[in-house]
């Protein structure tokens, strides 16, 4: 099913939010797709985009690529419109909130479907908008951040995307990709974080963030090339280069 992109207005967002609340109580509710074209709940957007619910996102990378392509004709301000992303979440609801083995839907926090405003808690956790932003910033270089399923952004999303200086730096993202992305298996390498030893495990993702914070006191990290940044990393990260 194809539809022209619209945006929820305040009432539409409230209704969608209310649906999510109800769905947490009864996971068997029918999804109110009729909201998508209800003119009392939605508005048109500045520009044109058509989305297709038959498109399947096998990963966050698929979603990032897809939205980068279909949203290219809409006004840049619409990309920041939370009504657009809430509308898209409902449009692709089968994928952002799939049924579990028992046939019930069990939605997570609202910010996974309706972007949180600002850069506060949850702003980096929208299931569709964040892959789009990451892909737009870094393209295929960000595979390590985008290789997971759209409903499971993973710890690497928490550690990197929530930090403005890290997610906006192309060299950092390229190095992360080189260290922690398994090209053969097309997934994040095993063991990059260990919650039990998260502060001490050498070469872990958390250590990477700590080391970058230290380097940043001395070096202009943004001007470093991929090789320049790799050069500065301590030996503890070498294990990932050969792994």
């Amino acid at each position, binding site marked *: 099913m194809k539809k022209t992109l619209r945006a929820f207005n305040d009432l539409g967002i409230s209704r969608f939010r209310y649906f999510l609340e109800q769905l947490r109580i009864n996971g068997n509710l029918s999804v109110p797709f009729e909201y998508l074209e209800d003119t009392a709940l939605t508005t048109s957007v500045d520009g044109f985009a058509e989305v297709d619910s038959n498109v399947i996102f096998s990963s966050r990378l698929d979603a990032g690529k897809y939205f980068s392509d279909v949203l290219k004709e809409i006004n840049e301000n619409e990309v920041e419109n939370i009504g657009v992303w809430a509308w898209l979440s409902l449009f692709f609801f089968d994928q952002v909130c799939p049924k579990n083995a028992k046939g019930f839907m069990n939605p997570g926090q609202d910010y996974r479907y309706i972007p949180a405003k600002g850069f506060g*808690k949850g702003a980096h956790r929208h299931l569709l908008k964040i892959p789009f932003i990451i892909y737009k910033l870094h393209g295929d270089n960000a595979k390590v951040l985008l290789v997971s399923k759209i409903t499971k952004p993973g710890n690497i999303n928490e550690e990197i995307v929530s930090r*403005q200086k890290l997610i906006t730096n192309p060299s950092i993202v390229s190095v992360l990709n080189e260290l922690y992305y398994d090209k053969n298996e097309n997934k994040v390498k095993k063991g990059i974080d260990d919650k039990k030893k998260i502060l001490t495990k050498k070469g872990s993702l958390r250590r990477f963030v700590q080391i970058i914070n230290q380097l940043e006191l001395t070096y202009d990290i943004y001007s470093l090339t991929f090789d320049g940044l790799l050069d500065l990393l301590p030996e503890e990260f070498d294990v990932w280069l050969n792994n």
Partner: protein
Amino acid sequence: MIRKFNYTNRIKIKRSDLFISIDRSDRIPRINADLRIEKYNLPIDGVIYIEAYHRTKFERFYFGTVGNFTIPENRNLNSFTIADLEDIRFRVKIVDERNAHGCILALAEGISPISEDKRNANRFSLLGVDLEDMGNRIWELDLEKPDTPWLKINSRLPDPYKLLRNNETFFCMVYPEIVRQILTHILVIIDDEYVLEDFNGEDCDSWELCWLLFGHKLSGKKWPHKNKEEEVRKWIETCVENFCRSQRIMQRMLGVLEEN
């Protein structure tokens, strides 16, 4: 006592020496900058970068060198929407690029642009503002961020920024409590001790010290030592009362009530 070690010899540029503004006269806003950095004795080949940032948006501009300050032709803030410009920040870096890896010689962060009416020209914001879905609450403070305290406003409100700009009731009822909560957080809740000697006379090293100096100015007295609980409470209340007096809170509120 907070003591910071500067092993890198990096120079801290005072915000009062940096004048960054946003020119909105064209369709695409662009950055303007005037830096007074001659007094820092930086090498003339130190490269000047100004970075604009807001959430996941980031742009960096080359402004020549210390010896040859150059305003770049293209300094459009292409990535930022009008809403982003409400809370955009700037970072100024002077970088030694003579070696393979550029080293930071001097830095200033968290700079707000000079506002159109220049009221907040070149000042470090004492309070950041952010929007967040907070259920049924209207506002709260986030005091856990390292850069500044953040006033969070519920994003479910129809036009939250309007509430901040034009709503006298909100200002009169909320801001005195913000002053109280922040000073209480610094002097009662957290363990660190701040001393006046940490202040270099112009720029604060931490937002906590900035707020204590703000309290010092309001109360006319230096903050008491944290182990003198009763004195601390009294000092905070004096700050709140004098804040209300200086902002004419009571008169403004009476004005609102009369209008209604």
